[in-house]
């Protein structure tokens, strides 16, 4: 479980992201320079790929959580980091899957690097920390997928939800119980 060790090392990192310029773009090409509007208690980045079946299967669950936690000051973004997922493809995908959660195109993979994610679907949770954002959780959404070909009939542990509840309660987020399973993010600089 080398992944866990790395995660533990990263847990205290402060990402000075907010207000430092363009992070990503929206579907109309406008720059997104602020992930957490004033008053947000946490930001969730859901890294997704329009052509990844496991990522797509999580859309209903992520939309549910976006709605459920919005009232508690949690802001969620659907982030598309793969080069093939341009505005046209993602717009069609958002429409097909009836996605109402704010969408970001991570064309420069700034968010990927900021969150240190490698997989879709994978999530990262940040909390405001001074003028920046601090990553408090990164990894799987739940434990439905243990590995390729190892899928539970339904999830037993909801890692992301547990992390969010802990953070909102002022507690440290428990680390994920296992690695994220899905499609590798196509890196811009192999």
């Amino acid at each position: 479980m080398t992944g866990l060790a790395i995660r533990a090392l990263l847990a205290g990192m402060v990402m000075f992201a907010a207000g430092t310029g363009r992070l990503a773009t929206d579907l109309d090409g406008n720059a997104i320079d602020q992930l957490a509007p004033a008053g947000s208690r946490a930001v969730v980045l859901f890294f997704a790929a329009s052509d990844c079946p496991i990522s797509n299967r999580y859309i209903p669950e992520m939309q549910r959580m976006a709605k459920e936690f919005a009232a508690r000051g949690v802001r969620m973004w659907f982030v598309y980091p793969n080069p093939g997922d341009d505005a046209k493809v993602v717009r069609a995908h958002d429409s097909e899957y009836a996605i109402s959660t704010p969408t970001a195109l991570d064309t420069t993979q700034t968010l990927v690097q900021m969150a240190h994610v490698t997989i879709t679907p994978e999530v990262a949770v940040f909390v405001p920390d001074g003028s920046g954002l601090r990553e408090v959780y990164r990894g799987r959404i739940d434990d439905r997928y243990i590995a390729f070909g190892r899928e539970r009939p339904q999830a037993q542990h909801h890692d992301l939800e547990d992390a969010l509840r802990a953070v909102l309660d002022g507690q440290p987020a428990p680390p994920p119980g296992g690695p994220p399973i899905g499609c590798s993010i196509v890196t811009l600089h192999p």
Partner: protein
Amino acid sequence: MKNRFPARGLVLLATLAACFVTISVTNRKVDAAQPDVTWSGQIAPLVYKNCTTCHHPGGGGPFSLLTYHEAQRWGAQMVTVTQSRFMPPWLPEHGFGDFADERRLSSEDIVQLAQWVKAGMPEGDPATAPPAPKYSETWQYGQPDLVLSVERPFHLPASGVDVFRNFVLPYPLKQTHYIRAMEIRPGAPQIVHHANVLIDRTASFRRAHPTQWQDGVPGMELEVDAGNDFDPDSHFLFWKPDTPVLVEPAGMPWRLDPGNDLILNMHLKPSGKPEVITAQVGLYFTDQPPTKQPMLLQLEHDSALDIPAGARNFVVEDEFKLPVDVDVLGIYPHAHYLGKVLEAWATLPDQQKRWLIRIPDWDIDRQSVYRYREPVFLPKNTVLHMHYIYDNSPDNVHNPHDPPIRVKAGNRSEDEMAHLWLQVLPVNAKKDGPDPRLLLEEAWMRNKLAKDPDDPIALYNLASSLAGQGKYADAVAAYRHMLALHPGDERALNGLGAALDDSGDWQRAQNVFSGLVAAHPESCDGRFNLASLELKHDQASDAEQQFRTMLKQCPADAGVHSGLGVALASEGSADAAQAEFQRALASDPHDFIALYNLGDLALQSGQFPRAVELLDSAAQQRPGDADAHEHLADAYAQSGRLGDAVIQVRAAIRISPENPALHALLSQALAATGDLQQAIEEQKTALHLAGNDADGWNNLGVLEARAGRNTEARADFLHALQIAPDHAQARANLGHLPPS
């Protein structure tokens, strides 16, 4: 007169199911000094051979790998999933059974793929790349002869647990067809994990779910009533994303009759958005009836499935000794989410062990039927073994229960199953022995009863298989055993009555049917059997009454009209009988009894061409019915078509070679065509089979005399007179012979 006994036969229960993998990673060092691996050179051929059957636009895989850029997008993924052997999907352990279409990459392939990705996925020279395979956007196998579609589109929710659902596709044609291939277009292939097709001969599932079947019925497994004829369900009709077309081997088409349903059992995986599924089944016909009749056999031990919570290595076994030689054509192991290691092997009579299959890490999501590259011959007295290990611990990620609970057998996905199906083709069967499938059925049912002595279906099927072999006394005993456990069971009573009648005890048979009808006045089968028995034993007016009651109570049935026709004909009401036969044909143009009897009536009234037409149709409906061929021969003879008459009598003789009357008839027909020598031989065969026939000896004498063999003729006439001293013809014929 022909009577139909619908009670003779078997109920075969077919169970269905639906269906993950961990693997050892091939951990070879990637050597960067190897010659360049490129898409055009090595990778495209590998991907086209192993991946694009599913991974093409519209295919069962989630994305396409047909082009270099598509493969590049998924390169890193391909390395991960091939190294873990998640892809291509293939559960059986290599070397434990030799399967056709083994979908497995070699270790060298996997290393090569990793090398390619590590080197930055070079394309190489596109001009040297092989052309991408082409996949049809519609039917892969061409336009089908018949397309069946689900009644109503099914709406799969965007998320949630996997859905197992059964869709009924009624076969709409009024004629029987043989099916040489079937293609399934699931509508949204990427969400369909697998599909299994069952033939419901009696539309039993549809009738059991009258308001639900159009929308599909939930359930992982289902049972259908195979009806009343011994007709073992003989084909695996199993679809998975990489095999959209199921082509049957030569000589082994399967059959659909009017009134049959196909049931499409689908395992559906929510995709993240609502999906609408409109599955279609394409059928490809052949005119050629099957020449080989395989059978599905099952090993199982569901009654042993009582897995304590937390148990890691719970073993369930079954054994079955083959009563006949067989070729094993295919195998289908099945368990639900707790199955871990699934094994099957055969112990040959010389104690040699032959592996049939071994699945070291079962995954219900990847279940499949496996067909052997070459049939596996297993001689009589081979013992088949099923050995399954279940894991009901929290460490089994597929475990549907958290925390684990005690699990027993059942057809919900959270229950368990321990099934092993084999498709076998009996070989080396004795020509004059019983149908080897009946022997397999008997042994199979005895095996089931050894595990569960009160299993009503096994008891019934055992009795029926015994009756089918002509072991009527044993069949009667088995039906009585079943009735002792399940008193009043309608089907068992019908079977008992039929077996009693076949054993020659028709009075007791009549008592059984009468008792059944008295206790269950609504029983159409019981009343039909009683009426048929009454017909056979000259109680036409009683039979007429039963049939008339059935016309009021039972669904419109050609058999009732034709039965009533037979009763009326026996009572001398030829016109009324004819009208009933016509009604029978209006409802089912293939009703044998109506065709046969109308043909006979036409023959008697001198309408020979009409008789030929009707009796020819009758003989086509039941090619194994000697009487139909005999009467057709008569109609041909009366029409002056002696050659056709000879062909039909020969057909009858092939069915009943020991029937002296048929040989005598053939002799007459041959004599009429001028083939005296063959005519004499056939008459001799007739007399060899039944020597105490004065007419027969007289006829032989006439033939001998015509052939100029007066000495032989004289002896024949004398033989006739010895049997019947008053035989006037023989005496006169003797007088016509020139003095010796």
